[in-house]
């Protein structure tokens, strides 16, 4: 019951935010919501499935670039070329970019490209029973390679600068506070949908199978299931969520660049989930928002301190509260319930 009240309270808070926060703060909150969407995917793959995903930045980036390419083309001048291509002397639109002029194609790519990459990688890796730390390392290596590729292909990707300077998002004017509110609302709705999907998955048969794979992969195989399929599907879902978040991040923050996607940013996405509690969806979402808020607050005052704090936070959480804040809450609640039971008996 109390969890329902908490949920209603959160929805209410998100609903009043556009009318009470300044546009700047609302933009920040919208950004945190994007990270929360990624966090749901991470909680699914890591918390429920036991797959430590260290390369979510890749999928975030694929979604972000797909959206960014469309937005760039929709704003392109008479030559039909995005501004950065004109500056770096590209004369004709690269073939890779051409289909992204179509909004339907771009929106489909936001979901399909990250999903497909994750599906292929998952299939190749999990079918060979490469798991645990090996998988974590491979996903991290993917993030490293992806970023280097983005930086290297400057004519196509905009290099280290990435894609930036967006003023319109479909019909919305991103420079106008109302446009920003609308984008925020879209992010909040997507977060709600992603949360509901993840909840349905976890509570259904598939979710039980997923936890079983996490806790005893061999036994699940002996029962006649194929753990590789379960893991691949889950990994793909988490990648699609990251892709959606990336696509929303672009109109909200106004930039997508390699610096946001590499090894360190990918790991940062995990910090919130670890702090909030990876086994509970609400914990992961709350943790992601909280940690990113802390990052903004600290970076405003003293930027160097943030890295100490972030590193220290990771160490402290893992040593003292491996299940995160959500674990502390449920632990306290269980102890309270046990005490109440004891008093009733006595």
């Amino acid at each position: 019951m109390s969890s329902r009240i908490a949920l209603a309270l959160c929805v209410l808070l998100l609903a009043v935010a556009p009318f009470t926060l300044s546009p700047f703060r609302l933009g920040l909150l919208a950004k945190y919501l994007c990270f929360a969407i990624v966090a749901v995917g991470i909680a699914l793959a890591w918390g429920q499935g036991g797959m430590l995903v260290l390369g979510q930045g890749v999928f975030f980036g694929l979604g972000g670039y797909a959206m960014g390419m469309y937005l760039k083309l929709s704003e392109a001048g008479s030559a039909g070329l995005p501004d950065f291509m004109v500056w770096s002397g590209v004369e004709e639109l690269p073939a890779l970019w051409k289909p992204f002029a179509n909004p339907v194609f771009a929106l489909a790519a936001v979901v399909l490209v990250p999903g497909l990459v994750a599906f292929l990688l998952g299939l190749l890796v999990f079918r060979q029973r490469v798991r645990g730390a090996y998988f974590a390392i491979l996903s991290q290596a993917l993030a490293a390679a992806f970023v280097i590729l983005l930086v290297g292909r400057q004519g196509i990707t905009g290099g280290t600068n990435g894609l930036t300077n967006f003023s319109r998002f479909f019909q919305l004017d991103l420079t106008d506070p109302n446009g920003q509110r609308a984008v925020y609302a879209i992010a909040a709705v997507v977060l709600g949908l992603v949360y509901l999907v993840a909840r349905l998955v976890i509570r259904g048969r598939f979710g039980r199978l997923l936890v079983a794979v996490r806790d005893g992969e061999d036994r699940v195989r002996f029962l006649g299931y194929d753990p590789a399929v379960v893991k691949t599907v889950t990994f793909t879902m988490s990648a699609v969520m990251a892709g959606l978040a990336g696509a929303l991040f672009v109109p909200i923050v106004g930039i997508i660049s390699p610096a946001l996607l590499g090894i360190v940013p990918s790991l940062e996405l995990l910090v919130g989930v670890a702090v909030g509690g990876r086994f509970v969806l609400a914990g992961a979402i709350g943790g992601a928002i909280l940690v990113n808020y802390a990052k903004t607050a600290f970076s405003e005052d003293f930027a160097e301190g943030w890295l100490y704090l972030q590193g220290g936070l990771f160490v402290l959480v893992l040593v003292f509260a491996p299940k995160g804040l959500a674990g502390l809450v449920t632990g306290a609640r269980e102890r309270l319930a046990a005490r109440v039971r004891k008093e009733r008996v006595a």
Partner: protein
Amino acid sequence: MEALANQLPIGLSIAAVLLLIALGLTFTFGQMGVINMAHGEFIMAGAYTAYLLQGWAGEQSFLLALPVAFAVAGLLGLLLEWALIRRFYGRPLDTLLLTWGVSLILQQLARDLFGAPNVQATAPGWLTGGIDLMGVRMPYNRLFILGLAVVCVVGVWWYLAKSPQGRRMRAVVQDRELAAYSGIATGRVDRFTFLLGSGLAGVAGVALTLVGPVGPGLGTFYIVDAFLVVVAGGLGQLRGAVIAAVALGMLNSFLEFWSDASLAKVLVFVVVIAFLQVRPQGMFVLRGRSLV
């Protein structure tokens, strides 16, 4: 063709550095199931040690820097193991995050102590220049790194195969419980392995000062490739680490030559994934009794 041949010493020296880094990783990973993301910062610690010694004792301190860096990085590793990691055995994925947190702190510490910009340690005079071997220009500094790696590998091999401590270590790698029942103090063996592995990372750091600048991010640059070496070579396997390091180091530098640096990394990744399709456990597998 000549330009291609000149890639050879570069590829070999990259392989040598990767090997020095991967040796420590593969043993801590294979023996304790610990994925040490802070390993890269031990490389950095070794490199800064060389830089500081040079400021204090001049260019000739380079050879002295090798054992000192081994000690500094090794002690850092020992401290990390003793303070944190030994509480985390059996939770490999958590050690990864834990050590990443430590690595963030160490990097920022380096930034505060030595400044964010890179510093340059000058190579000693006797390492400048090079010789021509069958038409291939072999710079002395790259040859030295190669020699250093060979000496270290032989040392590690001797330690594992011949010394009593190495025998204990192999026993723990093969079967921790059985080793404990046989009276081996596994905790002490773990700590020693950590000291050795971290120390080798420090030596790799000194070697890196010969070919490039030293900065707070030095470790992160190499750590991912070193982990790929561990994955491709098989856990806790000296042979596997050597072959995988040479293969990946050469592959990387030749691919960079043929395409460019950005595509090379992606291709190396694809090659590793393809390789794992054939040998999912890496090149050499320690046969245990667990299901695979």
